[in-house]
């Protein structure tokens, strides 16, 4: 059994790498110990600590849904030292993973409801696990209509293109809305920012949860739109990011007031966020 309290990671082997954009890659990995893989027990929305030896650790969301099989996917943006080294790794190479950590999307409470996902840029990564969970053969019947509104700066910056343009639209009772800030020769679709597109699509708040993840600026402009459409604070779910080192509520740095994002989050409803200090 994996020991989630340990600071020691378990070795994983990279089985697949997808270049999502010029600086984002998705790594598919399996634990070298089949027992750990079997019993990992991750839930949609949880995160792991990735160890790249020599560089330390980084907190990365599990992008894959546990329903998709015995592997984990991590979608990583190259931003600093550790992520740079990770981006240089190849299929067959190894790094370390410990987890799963944090809370998860309230997928039990969401049963019987429609789901409206709003994603911006590479932040579709943390919510993709829930999208695939709700769209899985196993649980599809538990959820209503699944709509995904996703945007990025340009076509080249869209992540998960095969999901967006092939896999998700082919599934029943789904709708995918894609937009980019700047059009180009390779883009025939909508041009414009995410919040404006949400206003245009105008989802009804009736029997629905909205799950939002994106850069702070997108969230800032999307929230008033959701509010105008009638979404209550309890119906809006998002994920937070703070610098993390332990993911165990001990190293101290990820607190927002009395809450540690690593154990009490990263998933929060807007109602919960309103009860917390605005220090994130």
């Amino acid at each position: 059994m994996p020991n989630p309290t340990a600071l020691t990671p378990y070795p994983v082997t990279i089985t697949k790498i997808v270049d999502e954009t010029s600086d984002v890659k998705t790594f598919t990995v399996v634990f070298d110990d089949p027992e750990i893989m079997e019993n990992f027990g991750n839930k949609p929305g949880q995160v792991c600590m990735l160890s790249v030896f020599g560089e330390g650790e980084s907190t990365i969301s599990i992008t894959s849904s546990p329903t998709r099989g015995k592997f984990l996917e991590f979608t990583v943006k190259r931003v600093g030292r550790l992520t740079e080294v990770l981006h240089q790794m190849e299929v067959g190479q190894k790094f370390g993973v410990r987890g799963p950590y944090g809370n998860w999307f309230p997928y039990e409470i969401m049963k019987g409801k429609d789901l409206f996902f709003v994603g911006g840029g590479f932040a579709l990564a943390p919510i993709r696990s829930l999208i695939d969970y709700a769209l899985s053969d196993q649980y599809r019947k538990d959820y209503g209509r699944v709509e995904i509104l996703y945007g990025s700066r340009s076509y080249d910056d869209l992540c998960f293109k095969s999901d967006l343009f092939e896999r998700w639209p082919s599934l029943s009772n789904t709708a995918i809305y894609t937009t980019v800030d700047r059009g180009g020769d390779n883009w025939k679709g909508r041009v414009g920012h995410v919040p404006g597109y949400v206003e245009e699509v105008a989802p009804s708040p009736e029997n629905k949860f909205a799950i939002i993840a994106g850069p702070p600026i997108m969230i800032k402009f999307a929230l008033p739109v959701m509010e105008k459409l009638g979404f209550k604070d309890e119906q809006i779910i998002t994920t937070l990011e703070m610098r993390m080192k332990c993911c165990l509520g001990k190293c101290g740095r990820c607190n927002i007031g009395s809450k540690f994002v690593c154990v009490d989050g990263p998933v929060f409803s807007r109602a919960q966020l309103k009860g917390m200090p605005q220090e994130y």
Partner: protein
Amino acid sequence: MEARIVNKGQLPELLDKLAKDCDLIAPVKEETTTLFRKISGAKDAFLEYNNSDISPKGCFLPQNEKTFSYTYTGDSLEIVKPEGAKKTVLFGTRPCDIKAITTLDPVFEGVKFGDEYYSSKRENTVIIGLSCSKVLSTCFCYAFGGGPCDGTGSDLLFTEIGDKYYVEINTDKGKALVDTYSQIFSSQGADQLAKGKEELAQKLSGEFIRKVDLTGVKEVLDGNFELPYWDGDNYKKCIGCGTCTYVCPTCHCFDIFDYTTGDFTGDRIRCWDSCMYPEYTLMAGGHNPRPTRKERVRNRFMHKLKYHLDRYDMVGCVGCGRCVKKCPVNIDITKIINDLKEVAQNA
């Protein structure tokens, strides 16, 4: 509760035996600094101290600790953990520092996530407390329900009375130690010394100079994150040196990094960190949720006086007075507590 007596003249014999039979950690004086170190016998111990400069928290959360070593050759990845803790005796801990350890316990031995490194040391260590014989001008342990002769959290508590130590046995672990060295611990006359300890505790409790009163402080902090008080002088004085966090016996923040000795060979280390540094919360991309000293100073005191209470039902300060004594710009938690009490009264 059972008690014993140890003649002061026999203490060296006890310490020498302990140092031989297990790891013995005790206060030592290095140049002008009093701190806790593993010693080889009674001759190394420095027991004439009032309050050590560096607290003994490092016995359980070392300043630098290897969590494992790794070797990655391309096809194989090997992770080797250090061995668990050895049998250890921590001798000569003052009551405030013992209380500090009990304040760290719920963080590292939490219901949800334990910490094998901490727990292994905690389980294998017998804590022998030493009552204070003096109250310093910076002491205020009483404000948190502690006291100079309070043995809560210790396995044994030694109290110096005349030419003897009165030894209270607080746990089974403590009892086992007493039984092992039964020729040094005598039960004769212990009852009479109990009264002596009472009197000492009584006398010392009247010697605190600092008046610290927490009444209403937690309440005024609850739901008042933007309290104008935090815009005042405290953060403006702070130079962000982090001294308060290093000397604090309840501060437990740490960093984790790799110390590489070869390409993919090295040690993973965790080391003390400080919430007073901007890098502590700095995220890749440059965003910092606590960008200035104001947010950092507020967070530190909110952690001590509210957050730790919210999470663990314990105040995150034990009144040891180290930060008061060591802060180069005189930021004083006792003044902050009293100011906040005033804010509460005027609210």
